[in-house]
């Protein structure tokens, strides 16, 4: 009997050769607790018989092979053990060794997790595995309790206790202890929903809502039973009566709920779904000569916006140029930075031209799309053909000509042409 892994194969000696005469053999398959064994025969050809047992209980007895008319072949459907052990036993029978033509059997097995939580209740009347919540795990299971209760040391049953439950998931489900059953007496429960700043919580009560109240002329009064909703910077609300409060937007990332029941009267309880959504920031304004992206109808916490200036304009913030701009919507609903401005760029003074000059044709203060024109003084000439070269202040703050070859205007001298003639001597 060799301990086997949680899956494998098993077969009679020498299979698929003929198995030895007078064979009587037994196999034990065991897997960890919390697992069942799924056995599938891949080949049966036995003159005597093979029996599959679990704790002495026969699960099946087979013989012959898939072609024999009088045999009992197991077919190819799996046999599932109820527990973590399985026995296979070959029996001797009126067996005639002279005529042995059988090759035995081969089978595959697989350990399968037992879903204890979906098993029917034990027959011993001990009740369900878990009194409230059952969570199946590989090879085992866990019990848990609704909010308002704690798991007892037996790891199966729950005891009332509902103080200090903190919910930090972005959505969740709360209810009064035992809901939808009436709430137990003398109860003081506290629920705290605390999510990341930048998210606000909304409470959505189900229609089925009942907290005992005392009717007065001003309406239901929550004297002895109440559910108090506490939102920072707002007056606490006490809820009671038979009408569900429906949806409550708290605009806060922290909400405390206090559920109090005295030892008289009865409240059938309440349940709610809470959800969160990100804080919104105001839609950013326009930036003249610039674009804000992305352009949305709403902006939420952690959203970013970027500002790019139109061509020929530069980003300015607090009087200084910046290379790029982005800002994030903060948890307090405000943008992290104020929007920048877009100022027109300029190319600076055009380079002076030796033996030439420059004058402005259009534009303003060397700004974007201003046009200047260079010319060469006689007897210098422009190597680029024609005597006037126009440059435009481009978006990259360079003075550029529409003749790409012109990087820098230049004036070349005409050879042999002094700028001053030798005076004529008049005497003859």
């Amino acid at each position, binding site marked *: 009997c060799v301990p086997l892994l949680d899956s494998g194969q098993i077969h009679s000696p020498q299979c698929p050769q003929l198995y030895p005469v007078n064979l009587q053999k037994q196999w034990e398959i065991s897997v960890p607790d919390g697992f069942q064994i799924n056995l599938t025969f891949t080949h049966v050809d036995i003159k005597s018989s093979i029996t599959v047992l679990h704790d002495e209980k026969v699960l099946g007895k087979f013989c012959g092979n898939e072609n024999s008319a009088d045999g009992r072949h197991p077919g190819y459907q799996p046999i599932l053990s109820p527990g973590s052990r399985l026995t296979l036993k070959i029996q001797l029978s009126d067996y005639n060794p002279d005529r042995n033509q059988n090759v035995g059997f081969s089978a595959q097995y697989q350990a399968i997790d037992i879903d204890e939580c979906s098993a029917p209740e034990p027959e011993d009347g001990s009740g369900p595995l878990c009194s409230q919540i059952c969570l199946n795990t590989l090879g085992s299971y866990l019990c848990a309790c609704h909010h308002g209760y704690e798991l007892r040391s037996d790891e199966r049953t729950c005891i009332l206790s509902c103080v200090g439950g903190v919910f930090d998931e972005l959505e969740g489900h709360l209810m009064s202890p035992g809901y939808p059953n009436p709430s137990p007496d003398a109860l003081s429960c506290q629920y705290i929903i605390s999510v990341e700043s930048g998210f606000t919580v909304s409470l959505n009560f189900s229609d089925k809502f009942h907290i005992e109240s005392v009717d007065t002329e001003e309406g239901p009064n929550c004297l002895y039973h109440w559910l108090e909703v506490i939102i920072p910077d707002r007056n606490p609300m006490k809820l009671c009566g038979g009408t569900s409060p429906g949806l409550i937007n708290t605009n806060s990332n922290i909400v405390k709920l206090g559920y109090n029941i005295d030892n008289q009267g009865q409240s059938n309880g309440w349940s709610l779904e809470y959800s969160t959504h990100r804080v919104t920031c105001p839609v950013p304004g326009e930036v003249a000569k610039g674009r804000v992206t992305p352009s949305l109808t709403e902006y939420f916490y952690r959203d970013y916006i970027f500002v790019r200036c139109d061509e020929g304009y530069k980003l300015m913030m607090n009087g200084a140029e910046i290379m790029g701009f982005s800002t994030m919507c903060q948890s307090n609903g405000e943008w992290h930075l104020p929007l920048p401005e877009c100022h027109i760029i300029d190319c600076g003074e055009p380079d002076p031209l030796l033996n030439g000059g420059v004058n402005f044709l259009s534009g303003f203060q060397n700004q974007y799309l201003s046009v200047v024109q260079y010319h060469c003084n006689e007897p210098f000439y422009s190597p680029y053909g024609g005597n006037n070269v126009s440059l435009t202040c481009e978006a990259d703050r360079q003075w550029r000509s529409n003749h790409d070859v012109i990087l820098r205007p230049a004036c070349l001298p005409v*050879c*042999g042409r002094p*700028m*001053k003639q030798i005076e004529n001597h008049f005497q003859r």
Partner: protein
Amino acid sequence: IIGGNDAAEHTIPWQALINVGSSRGGGMIIADRWILTAAHVVVLNGQVQTPEALFVYLGVTDVHQIIENLSLNVTAVHVHSEYNNPNNLNFDHDIALIKLKDPITFQAAIMPLCLPSEDDTYDTGMMGMVSGFGITDKGNQRRFLTNKLKYVHVPVVEQKKCSISLKGKPSSRTPRLTNNMFCAGTPEGGKDSCNGDSGSGFTLQSENGRFWAAGIVSWGLGCGQKGTYGFYTKVANYVDWINKIMREN
């Protein structure tokens, strides 16, 4: 320059003043990094001078100005490979190019001279202008070294007359005339280039009025004497060589 005048500023802007050792010579600007001169200005005792030994000044009309002008940095000297004048009697291929380290900044006082174009000609009698800082006269036979840039207009002389002017002189002491040369001056003398003008330009004017480098002051028998002429390297024969050297360097 014999029988000439002072050159006012900006009138001969291609003129270069070249000091090699203790001797003085001239040259002409033909491109933003190139000075054309005579080979014998940069070859002393058969040795081509190193760039460091040359002091080149541009845009000056008075030698005193070099005191406050820095010399230009010279990076290379290219002497015509066929120039061979061990005994100072063979001025054939008397031409050289000086390469400057930095491009020249042109201005009114510093301008280039044109090289000969294909339709430029050396017509006998055509008045040319030769300039330089060389020895001058004061209207009498006595010679002075001037500090002023001077110029004189002299005509191109027929090649045959150039040859005749050398006849009767002992060949052992008279340089040879070749077709790579021409001469200019007047039979009566009195107008000529002289020592110290070597390497400067002899210019003619083409039809569009531009001055072009027709000759390089090369040699002569005395200066400005009756019956003698100044001899000049004929630049038109070397335009390909000049362009090749500039292109390759």
